[in-house]
């Protein structure tokens, strides 16, 4: 892609950058942040899901539980990682290790990069919908700080299942969407070829999401995109993650969980402010809410 000022990128160009085959993936960031990262495996029920890497590592003097939806660099890796499309076992592994993090008081960093949960018969048979639903509900009960960052594609419920956090960041050229542009086009037009129009209407870029109040910060990428300089992209992400995690470390668990609840409870406050949205429900204890923007 030619070098061009970032504001002139079309929405579809951003989608292509988010999916760039040389873009840094979750392990590229995790290994830079915590060179001693230990990957742990398995949901303790039946399988390990290689689409999600997870485990502890040292970062800025703390033991942190890392999660990352992991894409593959070449065809063999992509197949092995299932294009970062998680099965139910992945969400169960995430919940197992999130509870483990809670046991030891480790803060959690989750890197989101998936087209969506795996749309296959086996995933359905083994309860993908329930696994995502339990994860989304489960994150509200993990009494340690959770910071998430969308580093590439944030596709639908499969991404949200790993992004129920106290703070959610996005890399500049990443996307986060109710459905992938292809899926949305297929639903709305019954034609996945209308993906470019769908992406534009869905408003999937980091700036769109920041404007809607869904993410706390957009992390700038190196000129031309994160794939041009993995090291610089990792430095920027690392600094931003720490800036958001550090103040959360001082909060008592009950406050942390209350704020996490309110972060999502009032995430659509932009819309709720409209005069005909009905009787207002005041946020409880909103003053001093670290999730407030």
């Amino acid at each position, binding site marked *: 892609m030619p070098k061009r000022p970032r504001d002139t990128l079309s929405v579809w160009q951003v989608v292509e950058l988010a999916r760039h085959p040389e873009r840094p993936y979750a392990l590229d960031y995790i290994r830079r942040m915590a060179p001693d990262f230990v990957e742990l495996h398995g949901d303790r029920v039946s399988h390990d899901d290689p689409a999600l890497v997870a485990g502890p590592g040292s970062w800025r003097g703390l033991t942190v539980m890392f999660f990352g939806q992991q894409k593959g660099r070449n065809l063999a890796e992509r197949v092995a990682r299932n294009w970062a499309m998680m099965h139910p076992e992945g969400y169960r592994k995430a919940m197992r290790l999130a509870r483990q993090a809670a046991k030891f008081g480790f803060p959690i960093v989750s890197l989101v990069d998936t087209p969506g949960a795996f749309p296959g018969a086996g995933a359905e048979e083994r309860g993908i919908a329930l696994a995502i639903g339990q994860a989304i509900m489960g994150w509200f009960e993990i009494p340690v700080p959770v910071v998430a960052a969308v580093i590439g594609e944030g596709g639908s419920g499969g991404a949200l299942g790993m992004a129920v956090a106290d703070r959610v960041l996005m890399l500049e050229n990443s996307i986060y969407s109710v459905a992938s542009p292809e899926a949305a086009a297929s*639903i709305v037009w019954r034609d996945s070829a209308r993906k470019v129009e769908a992406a534009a209407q869905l408003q999937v870029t980091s700036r769109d999401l920041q404007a*809607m109040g869904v993410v706390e910060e957009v992390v700038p990428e190196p000129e031309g995109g994160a794939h041009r300089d993995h090291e610089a992209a990792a430095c920027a992400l690392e600094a931003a993650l720490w800036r958001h995690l550090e103040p959360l470390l001082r909060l008592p668990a009950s406050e942390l969980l209350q704020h996490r609840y309110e972060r999502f409870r009032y*995430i659509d406050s932009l819309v709720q402010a409209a005069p005909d949205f009905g009787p207002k429900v005041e946020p409880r204890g909103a003053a001093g809410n670290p999730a407030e923007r």
Partner: protein
Amino acid sequence: MRPEAGPGEWASWGVSPSSVAASGGRLPPIALTTNCPSCGVGLVPEALRERCYVCDCGHHFRMHADAWIALLADAGSWQERWADIRPHDLLEWKVPRAYQETLDQARAEGLNEAVRVGTATLAGLAVWLAVFDFRFVGGSLSIVAGERLTRSLEQAAATRTPYLLLAASGGARMQEGILALMQMAKINGAVGRLHQMGVPYFAVLTDPTYGGVPASLALLADVNIAEPGAAIGFTGPRVIKQSTHADLPPGFQSAEFQLRCGQVDLVVPRTELRARLAHLIQLYTRPGRGRG
């Protein structure tokens, strides 16, 4: 955590399931084809209405929210809440059809969003009731739907009232973008609190229930009930075939399939649903049960 059950708090205990009528009130008309899609028999709308829109062959016709409220709630007990919250075209969605136009048309047809919530009694038992309406943009999960679900879940938790969900949805509403997706987290936070408060939650999954609805609240009930033959899943069969080129077995994602896969507890015919729910509500609200 739970205060002592005061006199009368569970006073309605003792409703005999055999005395519970199949329907709380007379069902309104629904749109019907001329023949049953399962057995082909010519349909007599009035006769079908008396049988809760279940064909002799067992085919369950899709019902809209008004019919579900009439079926589940005791006649005259339904008190709708937050019906005045209105959807917005926040993304200014234009093609292939303007979202505002879709909303205006639905409103002109007398429809009020894809989820309606309120309080009611079922065989005399107090419940919070949330009903999806598949007629409104395919029962899709929107900001208004999420707000009504969340407020009602919070109210049910605060008043310790059993929560009853009737699900029928194609998933999250595309035209509301990321904020539609965020409703899943907003709702599930409230579902977690309902569970923490020890309040019973029952979900009825009807045809079809897909995407963001089973992936948020619909499978997280204490008892998941499905209607016979209902299609229930995360990804629809068309997309699964497209993306994996796999042949799907007959009955894939049916209620009976989900029962075998361990995702639902019971498959209950519509004519028995109300009696079953009355029984379950009593089992789970019996005075003096374990929690102090």
